[in-house]
């Protein structure tokens, strides 16, 4: 994929530029001529959607920073001022706040797709790991961004999350003091979170460049998991995937707009519209929806340090996934047993998210008291999250390694084109080839 280029500079300026800095060639090879498997389905459109999400967050965020005041006495009022007095401030702020949720919806779809089609396997291990780095940076950015409005949940969420680092032995307390810039969450904390919230997205953009670079070296995976064998397996990225991604982006934006314009506060906690008050703790401190599965894992473990380690472990395990799954077959289409375990894994993640939003001792089946096992009733959210968390880790650490050794996969197609061409609908006679060459 890399190395060979079909770019032919046509104008004088392009020839001049190409001899000095072949930036047009780079763009042409990356987004026009880039050979892409022709069987990518809509799950593969989330990469483009995510690029758009990052762009929206950067653009709206830069405008918000022009009006926002990072000070404990003014932050809350400055956000409200943006929504009341700044021209289209409500639009910019609601796009940014809902944009974070949309970003996570897209990133979760993108990650589950990678898990299902084995996109983390050789030669794409580094591509996957760079994606995990982006995800980690996204979580840090989203957390610090949520603190900035300085509402009740901003403040108390910051207290809970920063205190987690205090559980680490020896260095814990120093790290917490360092994060706070003092001895409690206060103005220095807000200031540094604002600074970092502005910095990290540009680091994400940098890693995105590496992510795309790594993608363009090894090429796209595809739903069959069979590598590209010949030119017949691919189509040029433009216009085939620009138009398919474009359609998916338009549909995604419809959902985005439905939230921004008609239900802008549906995904947030109403308590965050109460200004922060360190002396009043909200009844339920909960993170935003996209952190709920990890919050459930944290609370599932009775010991604080172990809970913190499990929570970070749930993300860390993704980094070593390429070496945990030993199967040579990439796509779960041809691994029926593993596929079944995968869908249970998806359910376990959703269950963890559900438990994360509930109180730990709340009954799963209302009104039914069973028996107390160790510290809680068996019919409680905390036990449900324990089972789901156990499955989460077992999927990566036991099921995938074990399946790689024991499972007999279904026969895979010879090439990407084979299952396609074996359909009755062959290319119709007189079909015009290569529409990308025209106009």
């Amino acid at each position, binding site marked *: 994929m890399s190395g060979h280029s079909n770019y032919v500079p046509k104008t004088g300026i392009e020839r001049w530029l190409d001899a000095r800095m072949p930036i047009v060639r780079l763009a042409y090879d990356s987004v026009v001529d880039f050979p892409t498997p022709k069987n990518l389905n809509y799950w593969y459109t989330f990469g483009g959607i995510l690029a758009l999400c990052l762009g929206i967050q950067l653009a709206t965020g830069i405008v918000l920073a022009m009006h926002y005041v990072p000070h404990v006495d003014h932050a809350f009022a400055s956000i409200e001022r943006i929504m009341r007095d700044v021209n289209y401030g409500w639009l910019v702020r609601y796009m940014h706040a809902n944009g974070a949720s949309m970003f996570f919806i897209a990133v979760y779809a993108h990650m589950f797709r990678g898990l299902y089609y084995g996109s983390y396997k050789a030669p794409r291990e580094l591509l996957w790991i760079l994606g995990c780095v982006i995800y980690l940076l996204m979580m840090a950015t989203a957390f610090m961004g949520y603190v900035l409005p300085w509402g009740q949940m901003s403040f108390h969420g910051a207290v809970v999350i920063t205190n987690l680092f205090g559980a680490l032995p020896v260095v814990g307390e120093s790290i917490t003091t360092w994060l706070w810039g003092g001895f409690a969450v206060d103005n220095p904390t807000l200031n540094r979170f604002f600074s970092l919230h502005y910095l990290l997205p540009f680091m994400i953009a940098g890693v995105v460049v590496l992510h795309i670079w790594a993608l363009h070296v090894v090429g796209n995976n595809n739903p069959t998991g069979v590598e590209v064998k010949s030119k017949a397996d691919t189509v040029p990225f433009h216009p085939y995937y620009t138009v398919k991604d474009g359609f998916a982006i338009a549909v995604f934006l419809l959902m985005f707009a439905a939230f921004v314009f008609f239900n802008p506060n549906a995904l947030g906690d109403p308590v965050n519209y109460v200004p922060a008050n360190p002396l009043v703790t909200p*009844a339920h401190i909960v993170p935003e929806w996209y952190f709920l599965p990890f919050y459930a894992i944290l609370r599932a473990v009775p010991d604080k340090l172990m809970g913190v380690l499990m929570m970070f472990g749930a993300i860390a395990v993704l980094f070593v996934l390429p070496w945990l799954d030993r199967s040579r077959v990439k796509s779960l289409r041809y691994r029926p047993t593993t596929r079944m375990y995968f869908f249970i894994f998806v359910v376990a993640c959703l269950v963890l998210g559900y438990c994360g939003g509930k109180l730990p001792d*709340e009954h799963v089946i209302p009104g039914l008291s069973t028996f107390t096992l160790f510290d809680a009733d068996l019919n409680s959210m905390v036990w449900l999250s324990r089972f789901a968390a156990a499955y989460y880790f077992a999927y990566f650490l036991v099921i995938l390694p074990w399946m790689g050794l024991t499972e007999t996969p279904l026969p895979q197609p010879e090439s990407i084109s084979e299952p396609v061409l074996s359909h009755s609908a062959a290319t*119709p006679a007189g079909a015009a080839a290569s529409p990308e060459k025209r106009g």
Partner: protein
Amino acid sequence: MLRKGLAIAVLGLALAGGPALAAGSQKEPRTVAWSFNGPFGKFDRAQLQRGYKVYREVCSACHAMSLMSFRNLGQKGGPFFDPKYPNPNDNPYVKTIAKDYEVSDIDGETGDVVKRPATAADRFPSPFPNEAAARASNGGALPPDFSTLSKSREGGPDYIYSLLTGYVTPPAGLQVPTGQHYNPYMPGDVSAYWKGKGHAPVGGMIAMAAPLAPEKVTFDDGTKSTVDQQARDVSAFLAWASEPKMEERKAFGVGAMVYLLILAGLLYVSYRRIWRNVAH
């Protein structure tokens, strides 16, 4: 199919996040068919004006609205908007309302603290100089600021309406402490005050006594001044105060949705045309 289900489930999880957290012990708020519900909903101008009157004559004795300025009342979408005065600072109705209030200022010549009539650009004056004074006058409780009240409560205007009309005689067995009042819509836990049999009732204690009474506010448009009407109107007014740009937002949103629908349709047709000769 399963994959589509996954996407829907992820979104469903996102949507369930909000209500899932509302597992309190209070009564579910009663649902009101607000004029501003739905994607085409608009505020009822007359209702906002009545609601402002309730706020001014009843609530503002204790509740500040520190993020609101008088000019907001006359801006587009506000209770006293008049198309003749696109700049709300010129709106004579707003100016008259402001003039009735006195605000502190610094005399530019002498530097003395003086009082002057408020202008449209001034913020609503707060009833108490600081939090301690507010608590001292209210039995230790702090009357919440109304600027963002509606969007800071689960249920929004439905909740405010239900709370205001929800004061009931406490059930026998509930010992309500002095200075507190029982309300089934108030979040909280009354089990500490429950001396009766079985489970304690849902709801909580609130320091505010039932604030509304029939005919407590005289409506200029002749609307019958019942507690229900006053509660409805002031809830609508508070919903507007929380989201003063709601009408602009929804109007913009309808345009955006139409645009995106057409764009998605065109892109889909293009997609089908470009891909028609590729077996995939």
